[in-house]
């Protein structure tokens, strides 16, 4: 009797224990939420909608593979509507209300700067997928796009060495990315390549500039000084279509005055007849035309997901692909989605990129990238004419800018600093 009673008691206790054990297991079955913070309306929708789609595709794909830590992933999509203050609001909403494990999002530098304090205050993680001007390193942000030394400087070197360019037009849209990049390039051209002041022309235009007649005529005049001339274009998004149309109409041939662009990819070219533009260049870390099994697979998945064979892939999409895979790996390494542990686990993570190499997360929260120079083809794709032998590590603080020359960033313990001044030996110089 007593034995029976004891036994039943033990079973009861066992059941209770099992129940208690099961409870956290049930909690683990809850999906992990991933925030997607890209504009789906307003001016930036043109570029950012695609990135939202590619994130949904990556999450769906990961779920089919069994999710992360045995849990499914659930995307939470919000629309900051190309409105910078709204980015901060939506980011706060994602972190505080939705309790997302990480956020993938933003495109313009100004939107990234708007959400940066939110991510630092609430200690969450942001993956930023677009090439930018550098001069920033935050503990809570992972930058998967290129900095100027992974895009602009190799492109200028290519023009100087291969095409023998001696005269430079730096043309850009009037905002922070072109201005900073052009400052870096101007110093680089003068100090490293010995270009004279007279041989550099700098020109800024407003956002969405559509009347390029005078500027293209000026470029032509500047280019007829008997020296080989090239245009380095940081012209942003929408202004490019009328710019390239004017180039074509005024008969500026790539063989005479090549234009190398840092903001023109496959997606931008989809709106232009590229027949007259063959030979103009772009510098990126990924091109859709690169033939690797990973890339073929990625393109096939993208076409299947979006249901349209004519859609292209581009560089920021690859950045999200790399960033997402890195996050998955870091979470599995840390065994948790806790931001502090994931941030520590991220450094040193390496995943394959789509161009046949590996991208590694460096201590400065930027990734290693190969640099590819492509020429525009008549079918709207790029053909790679030059590439770096290996991958390049980011100079997040440019050595060509006054004030950032002495700064380094290293988020490993014990330094844990985004702007360590090696001259003064103190953390906290310029920038954030």
């Amino acid at each position, binding site marked *: 009797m007593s034995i029976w009673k004891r036994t039943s008691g033990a079973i009861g206790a066992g059941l209770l224990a099992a129940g208690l054990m099961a409870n956290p297991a049930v909690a683990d079955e809850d999906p992990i939420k991933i925030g997607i913070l890209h504009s*789906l*309306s307003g*001016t930036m*929708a*043109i570029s950012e*909608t*695609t990135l939202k789609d590619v994130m949904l595709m990556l999450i769906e794909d990961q779920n089919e593979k069994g999710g992360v830590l045995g849990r499914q992933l659930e995307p939470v999509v919000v629309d900051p509507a190309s409105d910078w203050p709204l980015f901060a609001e939506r980011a706060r909403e994602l972190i505080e209300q939705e309790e997302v494990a990480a956020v993938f999002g933003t495109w313009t530098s100004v939107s990234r700067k708007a959400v940066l304090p939110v991510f630092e205050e609430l200690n969450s993680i942001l993956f930023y997928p677009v090439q930018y001007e550098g001069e920033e390193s935050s503990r809570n942000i992972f930058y998967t796009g290129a900095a100027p030394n992974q895009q602009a400087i190799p492109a200028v070197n290519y023009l100087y060495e*291969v*095409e023998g360019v001696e005269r430079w037009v730096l043309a850009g849209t*009037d905002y922070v990315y072109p201005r900073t990049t052009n400052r870096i390039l101007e110093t680089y051209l003068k100090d490293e390549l010995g270009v004279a002041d007279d041989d550099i022309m700098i*020109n*800024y*235009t*407003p956002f*969405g*500039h*559509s*009347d390029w*007649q*005078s*500027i293209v*005529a*000026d470029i*032509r*005049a500047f280019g*007829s*000084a*008997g020296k080989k001339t090239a245009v380095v274009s940081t012209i942003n998004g*929408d202004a490019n*279509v*009328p710019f390239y*149309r*004017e180039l*074509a*109409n*005024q*008969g500026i041939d*790539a*063989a*005479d005055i*090549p234009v190398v662009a840092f903001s023109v990819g496959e*997606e*931008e070219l*989809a*709106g*232009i*007849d590229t027949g*007259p533009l063959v*030979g103009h260049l772009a510098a990126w870390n990924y091109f859709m035309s690169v033939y690797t099994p990973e890339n073929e697979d990625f393109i096939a998945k993208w076409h299947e997901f979006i249901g349209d064979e004519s859609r292209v892939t581009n560089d920021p999409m690859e950045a999200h692909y790399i960033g997402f895979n890195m996050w998955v790996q870091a979470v599995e390494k840390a065994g948790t989605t806790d931001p502090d542990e994931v941030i520590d686990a991220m450094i040193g993570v390496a995943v394959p990129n789509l161009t046949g190499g590996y991208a590694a997360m460096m201590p400065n929260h930027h990734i290693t990238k190969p640099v590819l120079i492509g*020429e525009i*083809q*008549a079918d709207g794709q790029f*053909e790679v*004419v030059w590439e770096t032998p290996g991958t390049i590590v980011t100079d997040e603080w440019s050595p060509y800018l006054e004030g950032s020359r002495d700064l380094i960033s290293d988020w490993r313990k014990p330094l844990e600093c985004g702007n360590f001044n090696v001259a003064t030996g103190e953390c906290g110089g310029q920038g954030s």
Partner: protein
Amino acid sequence: MIPGRPSLTESVLQSPSRLRVTAMRILLTITAVLVLALAAVVGRAEAQHELRGHVDALAIGGFAELEDAIAELAATGHPDAAPVLGMLRDGDLYVQPDGTVVRAERGGAGFLVSDPLTGEDLGEVGRGGVDRIRVNNNIRRAVRGALAGVTLMNPDPQIRYDAARTLSGAPSADMLEPLDAALAKEAVGWVREEMAHARAVIVLEPGSGADESTRIAAVERVAERANRDALVLLNAVAARDEGAVQAAAQDGIAAIERRLVIRDNAQHIWYGISLGSVLLLAAIGLAITFGVMGVINMAHGEMVMIGAYTTFVVQELIRNHAPGLFDASVLIAIPLAFLVAGAIGVAIERGIIRFLYGRPLETLLATWGLALILQQSVRSIFGPTNRQVGNPSWMSGAFDLWGLSITWGRLYIVIFALIVFAGLILLLRYSSFGLKVRAVTQNRRMAASMGIRTPWVDAMTFGLGSGIAGIAGVALSQIDNVSPNLGQGYIIDSFMVVVFGGVGNLWGTLVGAMTLGIVNKFLEPYAGAVLAKILVLVVVILFIQRRPRGLFALRGRAAEA
């Protein structure tokens, strides 16, 4: 054998033995012809065999080796070299695994392969079966230079002209001889002129070995061109040569600089007119809805966008169903864009605006909301990315007019804007509909008492303004992005033009648009595009402060309407 060489019919009509002999003769002739033809084919094949080595050399090594191979291929002077170089430039040449170079085009499951020299069909290979010979800008330049030497005698005058132009762009003393030979045979005046110019440029090169009088003549010929290229060349000559040649070059430089100042100003005016015509097109619909009717229509830019998207849809349909009509696509799109945007305009007026007459603030907010709705609908239907609208061939490229480079597209837009403007003026001035519009806007109650259906006139007028915005969209699709944001870029400029020109006055809109365009283009070179825009805005604000009714204020009773 047979005197008088009788014809075949004659011989057939003669005796049977004669017939046999004739038949034999015919047979012999045919055989002879065949043998000769065969010999020619073999000879030709052998000649191509020689080129074959040069062609296959194109696939060996990197860009530097490719450049040498191009030079060697061109140096053969063989007539078949030029087409192969053209294929190389266009990226049609591929290399097979065995090292032979073939021409390949996308087709079937992979590539359709043919022989670049004979054009013989070599069947089909898979996507990885051939490797493309990569070309970059240096290679394109090398091909262009090599082709120029080979094509100086081409039957097509345009190709000869291009060859001569290329030679003057990259002068080399080696080309003097072929150029002289081409000049001696050239019969077409404008090609001759270009060749003579190229010859002058080459003569001025150091090391051409020409005597002083030839060089002075060359300097004078180059100076006649009076463009920047000529200036660069003469500057180099003035720095390098001595004596009479140097003096001639200095005279030439002074003359060119004088002409360049005049030409630069003419260029600014033309660019200004061109920008003005774009502003005019964007604003003219608003001049009706805002200027004549007094409706603050923030969705005006979206009407322009709808017109541009109509052009896109028309082009897509034509591309898919009747590619031959592509050059006419823009003309077909004009009436359709008018109808589509006009119909939407009428719907907006009937559905929203008619309830808001006399309440400008509400109209502003309602139409602004409407603009957002229209943008987002287009984004949902067509996607957020830019859509490709092609330029018909007659709107592409540029021509030189007294040294001004004028692009065809811009010229047609200027003409088109003026036609639309004139049409609108005539419609309002001389048609019965125009009379009703003027009557209703000047005195609504009086017009209603005279039996005019004022709501109908309101709807039609708004539809007319929207339809014209749609037409503007067709023109703007030729120079700007076709994206959901297209309209936003023009709405502020449009209001600026209408207010500056004088509300309610179409002529004011014309003068306002042209003035703003030209002022902008004169400021741009000195102040930069960003500052120029700001300065124009400040000037307009100051002007409105002084004259609130704009350039051409309406006076008298009309002003009170």
